[in-house]
């Protein structure tokens, strides 16, 4: 039995349809990430769960009950807002205990719960401080404490780390996972940062243009993108895509025809697509200075040094392609050779942009 279920839910702001026919089922206690660029509708989905946004049509079930018109207060939601939404005029303790006091929970129990949350999020000694006296990280943890202390069924986070600086974000990610495992609530986490998505999420829903492009584990989303959008969105720099120019079991790259493996040949043949786009992740491309059998000659036009890695830019069938390698084997721009690794290839139907799937032996 799913704890949150969307059944062809549509959300309109005026005439503009922001969520187009959403079907999503979230298991109890799961850590699900809603990932997408800004304006894709991910926050709207979160707010529809919390009741802060109404549902134009379709049904939402919480713990099996129809929740469309349920008052936000009755849905058992603990939420962390992007700007933390701490009450500037209340101390940390009052902020955390705000909800509990509204529900007239006995003071003794409030004190215990707050004490526990404060220790978990190591906010000790800050209880009587005002939000403006805290650092960004501390404020974020107070917002977390306030959401957790409710011990509600659902734990919603709307880009909670986006206001933190880089180092803090890493630490905060680990804490989030730790807390989730401790409290065991169903956690829905909205972010546009794919690293956060990959590290925090047990499952990721990649969203674009109001639709779920793919819903799967981080590994699958990275290794087997369901469509071109997911492929390009996940991974940075994003996956290289170019016209595969596949024909009769071969792939033509810059006028060099390379034979496909039997598995790929069979897959490509039966894809029934007029035109196929090939995709390779930059980190899966290894260039060599010396020619090699079955390698494609390329001229590296541009070269970037990221310190721990090096990037080489060249073109394949008219598209700019980038290769990321650990060390600077080519020592600057010059002629190089690329032997594509069949295990790292992806093919998409140019028309539907859907992934045509992978041959058996390649799915190591």
């Amino acid at each position, binding site marked *: 039995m799913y704890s949150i279920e969307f059944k062809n839910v549509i959300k309109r702001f005026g005439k503009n349809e922001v969520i187009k026919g959403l079907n999503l089922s979230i298991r109890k206690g799961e850590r699900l990430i809603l990932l997408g660029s800004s304006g894709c509708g991910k926050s709207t989905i979160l707010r529809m769960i*919390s*009741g*802060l946004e109404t549902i134009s049509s379709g049904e939402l079930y919480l713990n099996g009950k129809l929740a469309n018109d349920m*008052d*936000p*207060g*009755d849905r058992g*939601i*603990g*939420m962390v*807002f*992007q*700007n933390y*939404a701490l*009450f*500037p*005029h*209340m101390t940390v303790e009052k902020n955390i205990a*705000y*909800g509990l006091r*509204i*529900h007239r929970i006995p003071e003794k129990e409030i004190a215990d719960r707050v004490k526990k949350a404060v220790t978990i999020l190591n906010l000790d000694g800050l209880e009587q401080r005002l939000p403006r006296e805290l650092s960004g990280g501390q404020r974020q943890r107070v917002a977390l404490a*306030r959401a957790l202390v409710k011990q509600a069924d659902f734990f919603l986070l709307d880009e909670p780390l986006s206001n933190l600086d880089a180092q803090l974000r890493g630490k905060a990610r680990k804490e989030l996972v730790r807390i989730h495992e401790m409290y065991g609530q169903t956690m829905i986490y909205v972010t546009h940062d794919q690293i956060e998505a990959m590290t925090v999420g047990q499952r990721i829903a990649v969203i674009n243009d109001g639709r779920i492009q793919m819903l799967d584990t981080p590994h699958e989303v990275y290794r087997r993108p369901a469509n071109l959008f997911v492929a390009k969105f996940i991974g940075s720099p994003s996956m290289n895509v170019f016209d595969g120019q596949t024909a009769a079991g071969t792939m033509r790259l810059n006028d060099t025809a390379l034979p496909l493996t039997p598995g790929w040949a069979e897959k490509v043949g039966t894809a029934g697509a007029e035109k196929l786009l090939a995709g390779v992740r930059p980190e899966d491309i290894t260039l060599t200075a010396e020619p090699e059998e079955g390698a494609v000659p390329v001229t590296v036009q541009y070269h970037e040094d990221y310190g721990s890695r090096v990037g080489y830019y060249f073109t394949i069938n008219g598209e700019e392609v980038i290769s990321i390698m650990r060390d600077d084997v080519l020592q600057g721009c010059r002629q190089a050779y690329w032997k594509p690794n069949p295990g790292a290839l992806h093919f998409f139907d140019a028309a539907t942009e859907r992934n045509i799937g992978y041959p058996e032996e390649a799915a190591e």
Partner: protein
Amino acid sequence: MKINSSEIKWHLLFIILVLLLIYPLLFSLSTSFKTMSEAFQSSSLIPADPTFSAYDRVFTTINFVQILSNTFIIAALVTIFKLVTSVFAAYAFVFFHFKGKTALYFLLISTIFIPFTVTMIPNYITLSKVGFVDSIYGVALPQLADATGIFLLRQYMKGIPMSLMEVAELERASHLTRLRTIVVPLIRPAILSIGIIFFINSWNEYVWPAIMIKSEVNYTLSLALQMFVSSEGGTDVPVAMAVATLTMLLPLGLYAVCQKFIIGTFAQSGIKG
């Protein structure tokens, strides 16, 4: 504090302006310590032989404490009711969404544009029908709400981030609780500043009390001034100035105490465009 040359002229301009505005206050203060004849002889700011005779006449001939308390009661009543009604109305216009909200808002705001020549006669007749003429409560009754209050408080309430209210919504807090625990505390400086403006305006009010109040026992400070001004018998100027100075004491006191406050609130977020 070095002020560079180009700014000197602006500082000069402001200093002249301040002197022009402060001079009348000083003039009133100094005249209140002069005798009748000296008041007319010299207009210097330092009285030749300062005397408390004017203040003495004020405290002996009129029941100053009664007049002070009348003025205070009206001002307090008007201020508290105006604030309460304005806060609730402003809250409704910011945090509720209902059909006809704009129309209702402009219906209320239009009262700012109703001149008192429209309201004076009908209100006088209505209040006299219910026996409220010549009573301080009659003066206060028509002023228990103020559209400027709604207008200003609405501006400040708009400054409250929506997410704070959503936190309350997630806790199923009633609107009254949201008002009490979030909205009012957050705009408390604005409420107090607007409250002080309401208080001072009511404290200084002259026209409406002049129409409503008849007997001396109900007089307010502005009316008390009239008890020393007679076109037939002449004006006791020092006493008039003494009353004027005494009238200024409380507003000046309030302002001195909360000046940082008032200036801060109005200066900080004013009327957002």
